């Protein structure tokens, strides 16, 4: 059987085939489609969205110790959240096969940094597999589970954006059911730090065995040639090497930690010059240099920043100039992404801009609040950081600060800092943008949605009750599309002595139920319109101009959010059916 699949879909396919019986993840680009594919096509793998990556990892760890084959998925920065468990798991080792996806994002297409998680794997002494195409995404997923069981170790499958988000032809088979392995309660293996000292040598033993295995691991592949040039490469970069340097000898590393010293030395001895082409940091290259291999060229030519491509390799190797965008003699203006038509975040940013406060933001669609036209978000770091940063700014003497966070990010990492803010008597003002979805990654359900990954009903988290339980004194809930009310409520919350929470509520427009509903659009009655342009200040992508300079609302795009009608001073914007 053969299908044209996304790298992420191929990973899902491999997990299903390999008999995986538990999957946990938190949405994060470029990893999200793995769990989504499993939920739609392979629900027998028992997939779920967890509250955050640490929880996902720990649930997976429990399921693997309990004897199942397990897949846990996250983006690169998600592994930071899960790192506490990730670093300790090798001390006990696993029972059932355990693979964690680390989806790295060179080029930071949708991320706040560009970390190379192979370093995290090395620190945790966890083996790393790196597929080079969609077919290998499927194959290495299966191989990873087998490796995990063979060496009783968690395994990292490292993907990068281009690998995860490219499509190719994938051959596949059928699901093989795998029996649950027996779990024997063993405190000396699975419990308390005091025994961990006894486990410490086991970690080294496993690593040594893996290092020996790496020398003959079939995932590492030598493609010799008569050229004087050799290339050591991994991941999707292998494809670029084949494209740009078709004559070169290639050592494709499918397992990039631990690395095989003998294999690398032998390969390099056969070639005059060996290029190391790997996306991210010089992980393989440093290891080779430390082995004393001297005929190596790598990051000094290709660079560490951003995504690789055949064009970039060509440029780096001096193989001819690659054309650049036309910028001379024409205005190549940018087209940054915008908040969707009818997005409930818009009114909040307009209010924050009006109130001239310092805003610490968080991770989600609302990072766009930092851009024009709002420019009403002043810091963004990591998941949940808005609250701690706001508390810190307050300690530094900045009084009018507001933290904003989405419902999913609040659940992910915002609850401990809120408890802390109350406990340490902060004057925090927190806005929770509650659109009942994990919006930026594609409106996945989360505990505030009332639905699970399969679309089935699930208990809905009561955000107000949760905030109340932390001891927050003032909690106001406001319809996120009521622009004046939001300003008033925010003003009150900022003035309030003690921690205050405002929940700006309204569903994400990208949710299937929002897209499906019948919308009566708003229209502009030109007779009443004075062309004052107030409605353009909503910055709604559905509002454009007619040739006569009147505003016009795209009927098929309008979500009937009412904000432009609220802002019109002459009531010229009306519901289509009501208008004359």
């Amino acid at each position: 059987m053969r299908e044209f699949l996304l790298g992420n879909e191929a990973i899902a396919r491999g997990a299903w085939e390999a008999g995986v019986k538990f999957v946990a993840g938190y949405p994060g680009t470029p990893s999200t489609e793995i769990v989504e594919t499993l939920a739609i096509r392979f629900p027998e793998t028992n997939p779920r969205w967890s509250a955050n990556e640490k929880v996902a990892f720990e649930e997976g760890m429990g399921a693997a110790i309990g004897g199942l084959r397990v897949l846990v998925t996250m983006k690169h920065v998600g592994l930071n959240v899960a790192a506490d468990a990730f670093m300790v798991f090798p001390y006990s080792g696993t029972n059932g096969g355990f693979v964690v996806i680390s989806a790295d994002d060179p080029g930071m297409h949708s991320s706040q940094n560009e970390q190379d998680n192979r370093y995290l794997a090395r620190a945790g002494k966890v083996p790393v597999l790196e597929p080079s195409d969609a077919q290998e995404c499927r194959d290495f997923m299966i191989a990873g589970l087998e490796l995990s069981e063979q060496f009783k170790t968690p395994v990292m499958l490292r993907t990068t954006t281009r690998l995860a988000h490219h499509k190719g032809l994938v051959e596949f088979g059928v699901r093989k059911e795998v029996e649950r392995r027996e779990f024997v309660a063993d405190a000396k293996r699975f419990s308390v730090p005091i025994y961990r000292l006894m486990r410490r040598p086991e970690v080294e033993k496993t690593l040594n065995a893996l290092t020996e295995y790496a020398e003959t691991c079939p995932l590492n592949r030598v493609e010799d040639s008569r050229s004087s040039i050799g290339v050591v490469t991994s991941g999707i970069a292998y494809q670029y090497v084949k494209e740009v340097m078709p004559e070169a000898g290639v050592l494709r590393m499918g397992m990039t930690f631990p690395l095989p010293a003998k294999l690398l030395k032998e390969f390099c001895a056969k070639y005059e010059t060996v290029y190391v082409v790997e996306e991210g940091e010089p992980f393989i290259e440093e290891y080779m240099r430390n082995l004393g291999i001297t005929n190596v060229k790598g990051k000094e030519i290709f660079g560490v920043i951003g995504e690789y491509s055949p064009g970039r390799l060509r440029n780096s190797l001096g193989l001819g100039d690659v054309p650049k965008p036309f910028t001379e003699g024409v205005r190549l203006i940018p087209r940054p992404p915008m908040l969707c038509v009818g997005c409930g975040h818009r009114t909040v940013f307009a209010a924050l801009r009006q109130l001239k406060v310092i805003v610490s933001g968080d991770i989600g669609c609302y990072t766009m609040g930092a851009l024009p036209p709002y420019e009403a978000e002043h810091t963004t770091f990591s998941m949940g950081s808005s609250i701690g940063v706001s508390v810190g700014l307050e300690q530094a003497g900045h009084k009018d600060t507001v933290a904003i966070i989405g419902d999913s990010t609040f659940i992910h990492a915002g609850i401990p800092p809120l408890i802390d803010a109350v406990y340490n008597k902060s004057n925090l003002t927190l806005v929770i943008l509650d659109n009942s979805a994990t919006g930026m990654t594609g409106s996945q359900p989360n505990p505030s949605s009332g639905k699970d990954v399969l679309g089935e009903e699930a208990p809905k988290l009561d955000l107000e009750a949760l905030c109340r339980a932390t001891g927050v004194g003032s909690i106001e809930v406001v319809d996120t599309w009521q622009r004046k009310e939001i300003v008033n409520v925010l003003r009150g919350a900022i003035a309030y002595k003690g921690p205050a929470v405002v929940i700006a509520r309204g569903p994400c427009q990208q949710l299937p139920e929002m897209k499906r509903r019948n919308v009566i659009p708003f229209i502009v009655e030109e007779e009443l319109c004075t062309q004052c342009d107030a409605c353009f200040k909503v910055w709604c992508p559905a509002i454009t101009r007619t040739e006569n300079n009147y505003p016009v609302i795209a009927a098929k795009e309008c979500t009937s959010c009412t904000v432009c009608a609220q802002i019109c001073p002459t009531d010229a914007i009306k519901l289509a059916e009501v208008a004359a």
Partner: protein
Amino acid sequence: MTNTISLMFAGVGGQGSLLIAELTSLAAVNAGYDTKQTEVHGVSQRGGSVETHVRFGKKVHSPIVTPGEANAVIGLEKLEALRFAHYVNAKEGTILVNDYELIPGSVVNAENIYPHEAIDFLKSKELHVTALPASKTARELGDGRMANVVLLGALSTLLPIPQETWDKTLRFRIPARYLEGNLKAFQAGREMMS
């Protein structure tokens, strides 16, 4: 065919450039080619630039198209065609551009600074540019959103994929209630190139 065909689809989120790239890939697969595709976009919202790379041939390595290599750049809108025009093979490639403007809502004063002359500019660079009234035609056929499929029809005349493979692919991939309109849109695009 030994050479790889490289295509660059450029549009704005929501215009359906990804859909026609996908249809092209599936048609290439159905025609027996090794095929790869990749999409580049920033954060996942609508309204930003979207570029989709498609490559097919006997054996394809990189999913990414290199600037200067594309057999065709398919621009669903003028500014985006301009943004990715340097991907075209200046000697042998074609830029197919929908004669249509989408003003970036997130850029201050965009209406005034939009490069309305993009098509003439590209022609002045001695590139082979074919401007097509895809949006206009799609509106006449009942739904402006089918402009993407009009362009796909035009593109299909440039590719070594038989008409019946396109037909089969469209019928397989497009939902029944949209199929008739889209087949008409596809045909209209083909006729524009004849």
